[in-house]
């Protein structure tokens, strides 16, 4: 029966049954490029000036290295994991909720940092971050990172930034005199349970939450209860950045967790929008360029990793996506990002960001945690009104 299944499910096979290959040794020395490199990336991460001429950090690389860059964009972390499982790609810009899964699944290989001279230029806070470094072994180079900020409408809050996430979690009257019911949004992804857990960390210390991604049954239940209360306030959960922008413009939404991307977009559009880091801290994402275990173009891939850390590339990409560069040198003197850019996008708040990572059953801060697939089904239940 298993044989039949294997022969039938080529499409589904990528998920669980595939036998994993053993991780290869990292490359010892660089040689000539193979002429091509393929990258799985978030939309807007690898630009070659096709959308806006000023934003191009691919053409120069192709000219210098002779490696033709092809990009496959993915919309979610899970899509990235699936594509990497399928194979045929060299690099992936994986967020923390995908990177550890890729490492555990042996889909990516360790990196020899000696071959990437710019590695030393990386923000020290990121060099050995736990979402790409396992037992002292580096599995990639940091690319960009950013916070999930609290975006709000300055009219509704009378130009006074809200100080707490309670504006999206608890029913209350906003400074403009109307209730927040139906006027706030939350992220339509199970990882948002961590935002609730982070809020409880500050407001219910007796639950003993140490890490919002590592929750035992009681802590998890408390987080879900908080989210059930939030369901009463939220008309629609946001999923797509552009739909959220539309909801702020046309649906009367005034506060929500969001990315600097949407904030920048709406401010550029002269909307009365601002963002803030509430006192409880924020969750965030940090992306790592990782190398596929069976990469066919490792030399070109190494060249791209080196290229991706150049201050100019980092600054341009950060400006385009509304993120923070991983190389601090990029924060100064970049025309597109401007000297204010890093600060606006959250550079100074690194310590207050709880970066996304996949919740696993065998967690480190306590004996047993609720795994991710339960986060998925329970968050569906919460949104469904259970």
């Amino acid at each position, binding site marked *: 029966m298993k044989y039949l299944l294997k022969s039938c499910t080529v499409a589904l096979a990528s998920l669980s049954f595939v036998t994993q290959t053993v991780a290869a040794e990292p490359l010892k020395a660089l040689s000539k490029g193979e002429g091509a490199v393929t990258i799985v990336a978030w939309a807007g991460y690898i630009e070659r000036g096709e959308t806006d001429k000023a934003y191009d950090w691919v053409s120069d690389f192709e000219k210098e290295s002779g490696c033709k860059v092809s990009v496959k964009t993915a919309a979610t972390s899970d899509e990235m994991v699936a594509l990497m499982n399928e194979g045929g790609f060299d690099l992936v810009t994986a967020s923390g909720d995908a990177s550890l899964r890729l490492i555990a699944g042996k889909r990516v290989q360790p990196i020899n940092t000696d071959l990437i001279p710019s590695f030393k230029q990386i923000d020290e806070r990121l060099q050995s971050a736990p979402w790409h470094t396992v037992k002292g072994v580096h599995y990639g180079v940091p690319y960009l990172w950013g916070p999930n900020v609290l975006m709000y409408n300055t009219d509704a809050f009378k130009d006074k930034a809200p100080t707490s996430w309670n504006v999206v979690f608890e029913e209350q009257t906003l400074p403009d005199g109307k209730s927040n019911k139906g*006027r706030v949004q939350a992220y339509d992804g199970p990882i948002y349970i961590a935002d609730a857990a982070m809020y409880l960390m500050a407001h219910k210390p007796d639950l003993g939450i140490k890490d919002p991604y590592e929750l035992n049954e009681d802590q998890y239940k408390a987080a879900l209860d908080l989210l059930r209360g939030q369901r009463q306030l939220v008309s629609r959960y946001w999923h797509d950045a552009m739909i959220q922008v539309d909801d702020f413009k046309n649906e*009367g939404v005034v506060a929500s967790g969001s990315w600097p991307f949407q904030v920048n977009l709406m401010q550029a559009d002269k909307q009365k929008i601002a963002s803030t880091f509430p006192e409880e801290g924020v969750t965030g994402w940090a992306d790592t360029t990782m190398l596929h275990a069976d990469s066919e173009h490792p030399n070109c891939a190494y060249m791209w990793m080196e290229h991706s850390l150049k201050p100019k590339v980092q600054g341009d990409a950060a400006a385009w996506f509304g993120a923070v560069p991983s190389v601090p040198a990029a924060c100064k003197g970049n025309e597109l990002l401007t000297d204010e850019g890093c600060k606006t996008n959250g550079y100074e708040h690194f310590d207050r960001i709880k970066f996304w990572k996949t919740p696993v059953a065998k967690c480190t801060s306590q004996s047993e945690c609720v795994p991710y697939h339960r986060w998925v089904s329970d968050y569906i*239940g919460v949104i469904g009104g259970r």
Partner: protein
Amino acid sequence: MTVLTVDTPGSSILPRRGGFAGALSDAFWRHPLLLLILMLTPPLLWLGIIYIGSLIALLLQSFFSIDDFSGVVNPEFTLATYAQLLNGTNLDIILRTVSMAALVTLASAVLAFPIAYYAARYAKGRWKAFFYLGVMLPLWSSYLVKVYAWKLILAKEGIVTWVFAKLHLGFVLEAILSLPVIGGNSLSVSYLGTFLVFVYIWLPYMILPTQAALERVPANLIEASADLGASPRQTFRTVLLPLALPGIVAGSIFTFSLTLGDYIIPQIIGSSRLFIGQAVYAQQGTAGNVPLAAAFSVVPIVIMGLYLAAAKRLGAFDAL
């Protein structure tokens, strides 16, 4: 001897067409089964391996389960995954989707009938073309564009709210939106909005088969019914409706199954509560829980199986 026969004028036996093509043609004529097998094998293989094969693989997956601790799929036969379908959250999703599909179908049928009736009975010449075009036109533009357009139309600060406000009827809209289950903060975040968009998107699929069925109802039957003293209501109930029913049922197969499987509209318009299609996507794509995703996708298959069996009894397939 054969040569002789052939040369004889007026003979009814024609000469063999020589060559490979001729021989092949003869062989096929003598053994019709051979031709049939040759013609049908490629599509049957396609259907059997690609379509049925993947369907069976999917069905098999649904009898597996996911290990709660590690999240790894455990390939041993169990019905536990199907039992999960019956827990509150999942049952909600199924009931929500099925009732939405049923209501959308009902509303489409009611809306489509007068339109189809007019187009079939009264529209002539240019008007008839106009009607066809009017029904088909929305199908030519992108589905996504239409859905996003509706999101704007139904938004809190969109045109519908504006029109109600200008007519000083804002309170009517408020009253509708304050209804417990179907209401919400605005039309675009309520079940009512999802319903309206579903009806708009699938309506043409109901109008066309209904119109085809109505065109086949002989006009003199209706006249005869009137001559025999039936009131218009009686004529409609006992003559027109039974004769048009196969068409309506055929249309309902489209509207029902399309609503059952759609996962884009409820994601863009509505209150973020999941429908079956979205649940499959979330369980398979996000959670890696393939068995539950597979079990979920069996639900519409079963429902449609029952539905088609019922539709067949009502003669829906005669109208396709």
